[in-house]
């Protein structure tokens, strides 16, 4: 067993040359662009793909904090919440007493409430989340290791509690509650971008291309950041804080920037998801969401951008498609009267365990990390085989 697991681990060793990997990336991007044309515009598969790509953005953002800078964040759902609420606040009839319209189409123009163009809202979401990220980061600066995890978790839960009970919180006077509680803010405005027809739920292709564009932008930002001075500072802090500080890396600034960048990216994904799902519901912002995104990036390969993309796509398809749709039809085909949907998250948990045990460094590990690990893994394998 151990020997097979080991060979499985090494079997994926895949180190293409830069030219090959560039060609591969271009081919993948081209496929991603034409992919929705192969599907029915309102098919379930396309729907799952849109959600999967939104999770890719989430994963890339969390990867900046956890993968690059090594700060374990268990409260990433906070940014999903703030991003989504930016849409709820500024793109719906929720604040009916206000009457603000900025760059919106004629069909929203007569509705009460605050209505901003989605592009503006995305920027607002990113800025708000960047600020929130900094706020969450501040108390963790003196903390070490897993204490950071619990403080971020605490912030995530505090924000969830405010989302659930926000209908009784009036910060800016009566008629302006913070949230709509469990009822959720729904519907939100249809997206209306320049040069494009208004988005509808009847044609998912524009949604797909929009989120794909966001993925490309975020990918570009994240790759450039990784290779920048700041990216190297993050890795230095992750590997050894003391050594990094004595080499002149400013710890406070570096760590806070990781939270800020990670938060802003999460806010973009949160705003998109809220607009796409057409609701901002407090029950979406549970701790399990943070865990889900964390599982994506660790399963994919912590710190590795392509690993995170793969992990997010794989896990979100397992969760949204494989378990509810595909596996559910298996017992029926075998002639068994058995409802597999009761086993949904058990199967999900089982898959998490299996994949992690077989590939502890993730599906596509970061090259630097893989170098560190190979020696250690090799010797330990030998130990286990002697004992087994």
């Amino acid at each position, binding site marked *: 067993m151990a020997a097979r697991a080991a060979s499985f681990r090494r079997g994926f060793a895949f180190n293409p040359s830069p030219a090959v990997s560039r060609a591969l990336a271009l081919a993948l991007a081209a496929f991603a662009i034409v992919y929705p044309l192969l599907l029915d515009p309102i098919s379930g598969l396309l729907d799952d793909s849109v959600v999967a790509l939104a999770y890719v953005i989430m994963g890339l953002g969390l990867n900046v904090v956890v993968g690059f800078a090594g700060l374990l964040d268990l409260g990433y759902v906070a940014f999903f919440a703030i991003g989504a609420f930016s849409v709820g606040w500024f793109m719906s009839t929720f604040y009916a007493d206000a009457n603000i319209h900025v760059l919106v189409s004629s069909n929203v123009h007569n509705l009460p409430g605050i209505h901003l163009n989605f592009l503006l809202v995305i920027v607002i979401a990113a800025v708000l989340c960047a600020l929130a990220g900094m706020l969450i980061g501040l108390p963790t600066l003196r903390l070490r290791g897993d204490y950071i995890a619990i403080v971020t978790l605490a912030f995530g839960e505090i924000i969830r509690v405010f989302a659930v009970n926000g209908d009784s919180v009036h910060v800016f006077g009566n008629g302006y509650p913070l949230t709509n509680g469990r009822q959720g803010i729904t519907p939100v405005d249809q997206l209306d971008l320049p040069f494009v027809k208004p988005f509808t739920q009847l044609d998912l292709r524009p949604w797909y291309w929009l989120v794909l564009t966001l993925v490309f932008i975020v990918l570009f930002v994240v790759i450039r950041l990784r290779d920048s001075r700041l990216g190297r500072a993050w890795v230095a802090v992750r590997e050894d804080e003391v050594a990094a500080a004595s080499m002149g890396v400013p710890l406070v600034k570096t760590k806070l920037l990781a939270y800020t960048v990670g938060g802003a990216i999460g806010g973009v994904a949160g705003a998109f998801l809220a607009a796409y799902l057409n609701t901002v519901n407090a029950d979406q912002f549970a701790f399990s969401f943070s865990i889900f995104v964390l599982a994506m990036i660790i399963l994919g390969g912590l710190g590795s951008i392509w690993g995170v993309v793969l992990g997010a796509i794989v896990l979100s398809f397992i969760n949204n498609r494989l378990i509810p749709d595909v596996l559910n039809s298996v017992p029926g085909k075998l002639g068994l009267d058995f409802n597999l949907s009761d086993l949904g998250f*058990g199967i999900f*948990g089982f898959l998490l365990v299996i994949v992690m045990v077989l590939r*502890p460094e*993730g599906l596509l590990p970061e090259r630097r990390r893989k170098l560190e690990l190979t020696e250690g893994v090799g010797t330990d394998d030998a130990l286990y085989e002697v004992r087994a």
Partner: protein
Amino acid sequence: MREFISKYGLIAVLLALPVFYGVKDLVDDGNLAHLGQNLFQGLSNGSIWALIAVGYTLVYGIIELINFAHGDVFMIGSFVAAGLFGTVGLGLATGVGGLVPGLLLVLVICMATCGALNVMIERVAYRPLRSAPKLAPLITAVGFSFILQNVGLLWVGGSPASVPDLIHAQQDVFTFLGITVQRADLLAIFVTIPLVVAATLFISRSRLGKAMRATAQDPDAARLMGISVDTTISLTFLLGGMLAGAAGLIYALYQTTVWYFQGFQAGLIAFTAAVMGGIGNLRGAVLGGLIIGCIQFISDDRIGPQWTPAIVFAYLVLIMVFRPQGLIGEETREAG
């Protein structure tokens, strides 16, 4: 000024809620009975969190893993207890003479089951990842948490199931200084104290406990000293699981309902308690559990239960700001 804040700020934070409501009670009622009642119930409820938190902190101390499956082991303990009451022949009519030995038997079985379950999880999900990146076992822990929750869901169903109120939990036993003591409180306190004392003694006095402490300090050096690291880690999981099983039984009798999701919530609270006290520190975990119990009861009663989680976590953040290593924790060994 700065020194003053860092020295006494923590105490001020901790005392803010009780002192505020104590003064309010004195003004309104002229005595502190109301606050005393809150604190007492908080302590008795907090002792359940303390039992779970000890399991968290033991595991963290030895392999630096946030064991997300721990809360669900506790949940399974509750389910085992609830399932066994009928089997053992305990019912609402059982008198004290039958109740005590019956419950002791259930307690032993619960502890054994959860201990074994925890050891099995360690063997399957954490041991193969011992040399893997630090966060890999975190994901397998989440995976096992999901699996156990699913087991609980299939076992009892999606909604909370009621458990026979064997000890008549809500019945008052006596009143002292205006504080009413119920049977549930006595049960929680009289099961928790001996267990925590036994666990502490085991770790500080016995040979195996010494091995555990040595492994926690430095696994490689411990191995060189002839300590079987794998066995010691299994033992830690056994101990943590046993305490979670005991907490499961108390919870079933105390709340008289069990739910497949209870472990997740309890796990979150217990993890918070362990960190608040200083993770890896046994007494810290107990202290954290008791403090959280008190905060919860004061907040449930005075501010509103819907805000309680936010207040508990706000407390945690404040404590972390003033004492980054937890209430009575030492600086932890930094993982490489």
